[in-house]
């Protein structure tokens, strides 16, 4: 059965009391500290009434003073969706737990985020750069990344 947004909020608050909510992009967004991610994700994936089995988008965002990893989730059984935003305070050494043990597609997506944002995923089975060369210096999707050779500024 499809859960209403209020029910989803209550469920998340019962696992992560410090979560904050907003409505954006047509989805309910929950923001919380990164340390709570794995436990919450596992719970939402496995609980019978939430069953978020389809991770359809995983990406990172580089903000001026912190980073977030954004997870777009959908339940193919119940039909509800949610967006989880794990907030990482450190821009110097960002680390977060992997969710590739929960959703297999995360393995590739997390490698992409690692490659382009430099966020390290703990317990990831094979964390390497996926697009760029292994000896590439820097993380291109970070806001302070400057590439003098491949100029993209217009």
């Amino acid at each position, binding site marked *: 059965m499809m859960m209403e947004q209020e029910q989803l909020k209550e469920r998340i608050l019962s696992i992560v009391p410090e979560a904050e909510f907003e409505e954006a992009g047509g989805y309910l967004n929950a923001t919380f500290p990164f340390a709570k991610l794995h436990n919450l994700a596992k719970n939402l994936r496995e609980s019978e009434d939430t069953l978020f089995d389809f991770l359809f988008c995983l990406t990172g965002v580089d903000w001026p003073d912190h980073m977030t990893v954004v997870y777009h989730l959908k339940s193919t059984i119940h039909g509800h969706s949610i967006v989880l935003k794990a907030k990482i305070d450190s821009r110097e050494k960002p680390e977060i737990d992997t969710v590739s043990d929960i959703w297999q597609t995360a393995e*590739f997506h997390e490698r992409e985020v690692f490659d382009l944002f430099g966020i390290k995923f703990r317990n990831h089975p094979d964390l390497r750069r996926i697009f760029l060369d292994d000896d590439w210096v820097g993380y*291109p999707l970070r806001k302070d990344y400057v590439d003098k050779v491949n100029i993209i500024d217009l």
Partner: protein
Amino acid sequence: MEEIATNKNTGKPLETQEYFINMGPQHPSTHGVLRLLLTLEGEIIHNVEPHLGYIHRSIEKMCEKDSYTQIIHLTDRMDYLSSHMNNEAVSLAVEQGLEVEIPDRVKVIRTIISELTRLSSHQLWWGVFGMDLGAITSFLYGFRDREMIIDIFEETCGARLTMNYNVPGGLMFDIHPNFQKGTKAFVTHFKKKLPEYDQLLTENVIFELRTKGVGVLSKEDAISFGVTGPTGRASGFSNDIRKHNPYSAYTQVDFNEVLREEGDSYARYKVRIQEMWESMSIIEQLIDNIPEGDYKVKTKAVIKLPKGEYYQKVETARGEFGVYIISEGGKSPYRLKFRSPGFSNLSALNRMAKGAKIADLVVIMSTLDLVIPDIDR
């Protein structure tokens, strides 16, 4: 039982060991620059490790410097066979942010062209799929009939592949006076040809032996790996965005989401063939009912999206294409993520190919219908 070869000198069984082989980056059946590092024992595949990035252009980074109108032009450099749908996804996301109401005429035209694009993509896939299996005829037939659609595109928007027919607020210009006539002529023609296509491969014994039971993907794995589009639907994963989150004119038309249970290469083939019939049915329902009206809502020359987040997904020929825009109120997005179907679909390749033979890998890859720029972005 198979006799184990022995070393003549020692009398002991011959030692076997795993070895590695590179398939690609220049290999005809990878359909682009993709390198697969295969771990093999004999010709049995133990592991497939895709190496990506040969054509990574960091389109997402470029988008952070571009205006929204320019971004649309970049999107058809990803999945170039679904260029119209990619353009549409960005247009819809921007329209969502601007809160503009799109004329019905635009919605219907966008839907017709989307379905024509899907048809042309599936035709090309059918042609190269046959060729990957050694049937050159299908390649020639597929390209011959696809040409009719490409001609319609050329007449409508001036481009054959990278169309850029969508702009935020509508279309770049109105349809060509010949559009309806040409489209109807194509549908009539292709309705006669598709059974011929089907017959050429479907009931062929060699074809069935090479595809049935090859590269099986279970429904659970399809969902977990995020495998969408015809590939996911062949495993019984109902994921058609046109049904689940309808956009443009898909609410007005009657069509079926094609689902199969087997999850093998044959099922993926059949899903795409059936989808071509559904696409033609959608076009037929709309082509005589294009409403009168404007082809565009006037938007500002420099579009600034209000601060916030926007997510729009569309169904391309390969699956779910998502556009995630984070705007800080400027003329360019703060962050833009493209969720490309090919990237997720490819992640399941290892699971599908394990235990298969090298020759089967060609079949499996072909039924995934990979477009490499869509994966690398």
